């Protein structure tokens, strides 16, 4: 761990694969900026890889003041051990007060390993980060300007705010898609700090024999309209209704974990706590009872229309329009109304 360093920067792990930045570090940049401005410190982005110099400028435009760039061949492919060693060395040298990571597969693989090596705290899958204070009731001791690490827990049934006041850096992973990506500001300037690290064969224990990255077929995050189906749709055939309505609206198709588990649709479409978080203009939920795990991924939608045969379904607790009825009748009526008008 490092000492409590009130002048420390706010860092974002700038995850990249094959020379392409992931969306998450860019999403995190906006919040890192707000946190750093509140604390009166700078935003640093840590960029590891090989032949990635071009990415540094992009991170500056999205809000970074400083880029810690480690450009080495051994870092070309992500490996837990080599990336952990590099980040630990940088953290010990520059003593940032906060380090945040995207809760991607890589972020969730790397951050705990770093936390363990540094004996520092880490909170997983945060949905919100703020600056605030912590009071210890027993002693009356107060700690100000701490990172409030806010996350759902217990299957999404509680929201916990976690802090770490003594074993720094304060670290958190943040769920993909929950922070709004800032706009690039072409007038921004920043500094690039070149760093080097000594890595041995022991730091690269994996041999990567094959890698296949599939572009996400579905872009739920960018969709203005989403039509989503749950277990209540009843079958893969009935799910065609969801597809038809989405096509007719120019929207994307979403699904709950339950619908995916039942094999109605593949998991690229998952919305909710363990899937994508969305905030479209219109969200049509069909045959979705509305468990809290699903709500967590969509309740910031501007308008929610819920169709369910059960008038007591929890989704009616947070929808704006309630249609109690069979989606196999309601959806064709919707399609008909749209076709007639548009």
């Amino acid at each position, binding site marked *: 761990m490092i000492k409590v360093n009130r002048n420390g920067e706010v860092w974002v792990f700038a995850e990249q694969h094959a020379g392409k930045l992931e969306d998450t570090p860019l999403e995190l940049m906006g919040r890192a900026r707000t946190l750093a401005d509140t604390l009166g410190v700078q935003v640093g982005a840590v960029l590891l890889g090989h032949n990635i110099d071009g990415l540094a400028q992009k991170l500056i435009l999205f809000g970074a003041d400083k880029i810690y760039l480690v450009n080495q061949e051994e870092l070309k492919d992500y490996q837990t051990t080599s990336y952990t060693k590099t980040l630990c060395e940088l953290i010990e040298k520059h003593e940032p007060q906060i380090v945040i990571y995207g809760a991607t597969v890589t972020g969730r693989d790397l951050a705990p390993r770093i936390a363990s090596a540094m004996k520092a*705290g880490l909170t997983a899958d945060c949905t919100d980060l703020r600056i605030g204070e912590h009071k210890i009731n027993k002693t009356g001791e107060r700690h100000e300007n701490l990172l409030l690490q806010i996350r759902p827990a*217990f299957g999404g*049934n*509680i929201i916990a705010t976690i802090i770490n006041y003594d*074993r720094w850096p304060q670290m958190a992973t943040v769920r993909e898609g929950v922070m709004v990506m800032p706009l690039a500001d072409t007038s921004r300037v920043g500094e690039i700090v070149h760093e080097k690290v000594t890595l041995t064969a022991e730091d690269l224990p994996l041999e990567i*024999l*094959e890698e296949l990255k599939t572009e996400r077929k579905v872009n739920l995050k960018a969709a203005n309209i989403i039509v989503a189906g749950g277990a209540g749709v009843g079958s893969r055939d009935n799910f065609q209704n969801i597809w038809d309505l989405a096509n007719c609206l120019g929207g994307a198709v979403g699904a709950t974990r339950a619908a995916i588990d039942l094999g109605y649709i593949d998991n690229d479409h998952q919305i909710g706590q363990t899937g994508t978080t969305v905030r479209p203009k219109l969200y049509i939920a069909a045959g979705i009872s509305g468990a809290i795990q699903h709500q967590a991924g969509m309740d910031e939608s501007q308008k929610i229309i819920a169709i369910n045969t059960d008038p007591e379904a929890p989704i009616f607790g947070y929808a704006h329009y*309630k249609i109690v*009825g069979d989606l196999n009748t309601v959806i064709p009526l919707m399609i008909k109304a749209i076709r007639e008008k548009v």
Partner: protein
Amino acid sequence: MPYNCVVLVKQVPDTKQISGKVMKDDGTVNRAALPAIFNPEDLNALELALQIKDKFGGTVTAVTMGLPTAANVLRQSLFRGADDAVLITDRRCAASDTLATSYILSCAVKKLDYDIVLCGRQAIDGDTAQVGPQLAEKLGIPQISYVETLKDIEDTELTVRRSIGNGHQVVRCKLPVLLTVLDTANEPRVNAAKQMMKHKKALTPIEIQQKAKFELPEADDAALGAKAEEITETLTKTDSVIKQWNLDDIEADLTWCGVSGSPTKVNRIQSVVLAAKEIRDVAPTEKDITDLIHEMIEDNTIA
């Protein structure tokens, strides 16, 4: 060649069973009212370990940290085919965060003989996925998280396919290694009748004492001790005494356990209470639905 696998398992409240019945009046969850289950992805980790044993030989040891009642997941591990089981239970473990938990587990795992350490990717009560990687770091061994399939083990090298979110990787690594296993990795086996018969009475030392007391409610300490010893002796014949270790047994440094070993602290907890929004009823009739759609087109929600 045979391999020794250590599987970390956890007993968790079944967070999927949350309904009105388990909510307290203030809208918070009454955890005690939820059934305690075997963490789902830990079953996949156990299954993978058992498949390794079936194919290559070796042993499978299930380890858990928890209350004395967590022995249930160890019994279930034995019923499925684990050879040995270890319960780490100690009041001084209370309030451990993931860092302290991984430290305590590492002290226990270091007492065991292992080539491969396995755990589920994450537990459904916390969903953090942190303990596996933290444990690997404390053991000083490489980790491979999000494992989908074990492709092969050749001599001292293991090859697995892991998920990278949108895609996959095939990686090879020298043993020893820690794997965190996804729920899509396999279909966990059910209890094996033979193993169940053999271990159906498996107990931890705490449970043996409780059983002695139950059988001889009026007896003095000496008689209880003798009874407990007798039960232990019978159970030992079928390898059915579950090992029970406290923090002293695993030589843990108390600074890194429980509250003092946990850098993360809870600042506040809020219950998610479904707040009713203003909701408009729309009848499932052609007229109402057409009106709704027209309204959405007019206010530009639908372009």
